[in-house]
């Protein structure tokens, strides 16, 4: 996998995430461009490179979501999305033998699974932090069930977004220089 290609696509995903996706937000539910890109890499790249890419995309997602805590201060918690996306990537790595990775619909369905798996880890971390209100005052009224449902709704929405994005990513697949992966190949698993 070419890391230069990853850098360019990650930047594009960042611009889409911050710039464009607010246009498509429905109430509190919004899709994730990072999740689509993370899934695309997870089904195509060698194992360790895929996990690293998911981790870096998670860090970018963490840095684009701010926590506001009393008295009106802002901070960014680096970790929940990084770990969530890495977990989602690890899960997809176990399933990618079943994925017809050149199909847009497969990209869409697995994007939703990737985002849903990541959501479990993210909500678990926020829940753990909410047990210590002195440490995380911004999570004093945190409701894990509601947050998980919201994120799972976002995961379904991500599947919708993955249809056009997945199509574009597949069109540009050559620039990534992914190795042909198959069971028995040195980079497989």
């Amino acid at each position, binding site marked *: 996998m070419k890391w230069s290609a990853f850098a360019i696509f990650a930047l594009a995903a960042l611009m889409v995430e911050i*710039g464009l996706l607010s*246009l498509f937000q429905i109430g509190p539910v919004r899709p994730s461009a990072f999740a689509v890109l993370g899934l695309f890499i997870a089904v195509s790249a060698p194992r360790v490179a895929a996990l*690293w890419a998911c981790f870096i995309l998670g860090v970018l997602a963490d840095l684009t979501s701010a926590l506001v805590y009393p008295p009106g201060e802002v901070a960014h918690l680096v970790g*929940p999305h990084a*770990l969530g996306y890495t977990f989602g990537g690890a899960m997809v790595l176990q399933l990618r033998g079943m994925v017809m990775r050149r199909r847009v619909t497969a990209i869409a369905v697995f994007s939703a699974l990737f985002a849903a798996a990541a959501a479990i880890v993210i909500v678990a971390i926020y829940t753990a932090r909410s047990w210590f209100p002195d440490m995380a005052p911004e999570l004093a009224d945190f409701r894990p069930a509601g947050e998980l449902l919201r994120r799972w709704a976002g995961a379904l929405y991500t599947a919708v977004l993955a249809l056009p994005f997945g199509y574009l990513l597949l069109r540009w697949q050559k620039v990534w220089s992914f190795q042909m992966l198959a069971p028995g190949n040195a980079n497989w698993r």
Partner: protein
Amino acid sequence: MKRFGSFQLLILACAAALILSLFVPTRALRWTNGLAAMVRLPAAPLAALATRTRAAFAGGPAGLVEEEHDLEHYRSEMHHYLALYNAERLRAHALQERIEQLERARVEGGDVHFEPVIAPVIGRTAQGNSVIYELRAGASEVQKNAVAVYDGAHLIGRIAQTSALTSLLIPITDPAIGPMQAYVAPERAGDDRRLSDFALTLLTARGDGLLEGEVESQAGAALRDYLLLDDPTWPKTGRAMIVGRIVRIEPIEESPLRARIIVQPTYDLANLSSVTIKVEQAGSAVTLGGDE
């Protein structure tokens, strides 16, 4: 081998992220704001464009959007000028208070020549059992040992140290300031006795915001009487300044002819935003001495 090293590094990165996520307080994460700003920078132009697009879509027909925009602009301008007006009102009020403080300090100063300097309290430092206050008044404005008062005649403390831009003030309620000689003066107005006719006592700070001293039981000290400073170790500008009022009188078992008086200063420095420093004009150094 290389791949294994990379995987190990990933495990370490995940462990670091987990520790950061679970054990670091949010208020300790402000350093991430710089990183986030750098990350968001490339997306800013597109984000602005998207925001404008969304506003255009959400705002209804184009003409209405324009009018709404103008209205919002005028509303914003109105609030801006309202805020400016209120800020000026507050500033005028603050200036009026400063003038009153300076005039009172001059009136209470008697025949000692001094320059009153308003010094804002900008911080407090705890050193052991003592609490020392930092003032925004440097060595060019105030001198060491200069007396700090509030409302003209109420003693607050003494300058302990000066630096180029700030100075440190020890309040009279801090035991570190040492014993202070003071007279008990009756509360009632129109008492024309000399200061030396009143009961003399040596006040010491108790460390709880109050001071205590002993007086002759027959001296006639009563509740709410004033304590006036008359200590030769203090600058002359502090003479006859009000240390506080008697809030309690207790008998002393081992000395039946004496009584213990508990004195409470009128103002607590912790609640004041500024004090007046009485800077002596006679020379560069503060002159010490009580009786002339």
